[in-house]
């Protein structure tokens, strides 16, 4: 599915004293199979943009088109397209309501009209991707789970619908480091197998470095940059203007470069930075 965002603007509580413009004049095109990160400080309009793409809000100006049809339209065509967009919200407790963990995950696939066997298979598959143990979780009440477990559960509920477009809003906040690593790896594997469109909203630069090939930087509701993740996430002046620091590996490489190391500075991940440093180090015979 092709997502076209054209001249998109959104104002909360328009024509009231509390009116607040969250987005203005946003143009974006996202093709099937792309992995796009949306980065921006708190209040930059990231979550609003996601909700507009999912057809949950009606634009104040401009359009969001899903394969040419307005995302929020009340037509059968638009509804079918909206069903293809799965969105995991920033606050998982906003979307969780069932009595047990398996029922929570089964809710979506059951509503798709799938048979019991298929629903059960999807529940098992989705719990596995998010790293929740189906046996341990069989009788757990969702609202008694820990913060990180709840986030995993909310995501499992969306994954079980197997949407061709997946929007993740801060997917790893509250996840422990191993859980985060495993989740990112499994989502990426699934993305590669299925040509999933992945849209990740985050202010965690390391998440974006791992998940996104392209990064859109939003500042005050406008697109401040849109380009390859490697370029956007290593552009110190651009990021600092938006109150972000470069990721720690980039900060290290830039510090080394300033003191004379001939290292490339656009290596976003710890392992990439280590490889880069080690290569330069051995090419100089261990003398820098």
């Amino acid at each position, binding site marked *: 599915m092709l997502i076209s965002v054209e001249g998109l603007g959104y104002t909360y509580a328009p024509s009231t004293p509390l009116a607040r413009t969250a987005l203005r004049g946003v143009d974006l095109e996202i093709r099937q199979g792309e992995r796009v990160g949306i980065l921006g400080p708190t209040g930059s309009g990231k979550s609003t943009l996601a909700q507009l793409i999912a057809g949950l809000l009606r634009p104040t100006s401009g359009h969001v088109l899903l394969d040419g049809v307005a995302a929020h339209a009340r037509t059968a065509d638009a509804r079918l397209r909206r069903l293809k967009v799965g969105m995991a919200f920033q606050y998982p407790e906003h979307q969780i309501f069932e009595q047990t963990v398996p029922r929570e995950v089964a809710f979506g696939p059951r509503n798709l009209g799938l048979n019991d066997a298929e629903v059960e298979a999807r529940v098992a598959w989705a719990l596995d991707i998010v790293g929740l143990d189906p046996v341990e979780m069989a009788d757990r*009440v969702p609202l008694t789970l820990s913060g990180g477990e709840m986030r995993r559960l909310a995501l499992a509920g969306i994954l079980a619908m197997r949407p061709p477009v997946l929007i993740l809003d801060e997917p790893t906040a509250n996840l422990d*480091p191993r859980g985060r690593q495993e989740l990112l790896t499994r989502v990426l594997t699934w993305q590669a197998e299925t040509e999933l469109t992945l849209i990740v909203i985050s202010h965690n630069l390391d998440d974006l470095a791992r998940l996104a090939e392209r990064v859109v930087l939003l500042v005050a509701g406008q697109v401040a940059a849109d380009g390859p993740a490697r370029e956007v996430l290593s552009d110190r002046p651009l990021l600092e203007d938006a109150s972000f620091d470069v990721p720690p590996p980039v900060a290290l490489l830039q510090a080394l470069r300033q*003191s004379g190391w001939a290292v490339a500075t656009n290596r976003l991940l*710890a392992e990439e930075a280590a490889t880069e440093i080690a290569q330069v180090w051995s090419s100089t015979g261990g003398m820098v």
Partner: protein
Amino acid sequence: MSKKQALGNQALESQGARPFIELRALTHAYALEGGGEVRALQGIDLTIERGEFVALVGPNGSGKSTLVRHLNGLLLPTSGQVWVDGLLTAHPSSLWKIRERVGMVFQNPENQFVASTVEEDVAFGPENLGLPPDELRRRVDDALKLVGLTEYATHPPHMLSGGQKQRTAIAGALATRPACIILDEPTSMLDPLGRRRTLETLRSLNQDQGITILLVTQSMDEATAAERMLVMVRGRVVSDGTPAEVFGQGQRLREWGLGLPSALEIADRLRERGLNLPAGLLTVEQLASALC
């Protein structure tokens, strides 16, 4: 020992020079849907002294939030004891005294606001202590000053940025003049700037005001800012030491499902590739100067 003697001993104990927070064999169990229970805390012994800055880390579901909710009596032990400043949380008459001493700040700032302006929100706690108006005013002003939000006193809380919201919540906790503030993943929803400001605020409250800080976090980089680090796994405290000591146990950390701060991770990978680096490089700055 007679009942009277036992009570007498307890009263005596509460006066003595004891740790500020003391957990004795603390266990907590949650009931499951359809019977059975999950043991979230499995016999924890722990003490925290006045003025410490402690980071608490651990995998999801390891019992971190359950543990901290015991420290101001939001949860009571299934067995074992929690003492705060010589007061036992299980005594209903101690609860309000304990909550004056231990303030709590949660993850999602949106769920914590009760009033329509920042200063009214901050006043909510001390107001309930029945303070005279001028004392209340002073405490609210002091608390807002300490977190750097004086100029936002009359703003509606929901119009603030995420970091400002969390600092408002911290000011609310401060206004009751607690000896200790506990924060349960307070920065997980914040952008890096909000994170940095919140951490700077905590550091200055600890260093300048002597307030005891217990910070629950999933960020290993954040944990390096503490002077003491606790690791919880499956309802137990499995490691307790300085960040350098705790992160020095590389392989065990991985077994616990925890990561390393970015600088340590890069340093480890560089050592694997033959570079000779000293131990205990916790920050990017330290690693950069070791390499230059």
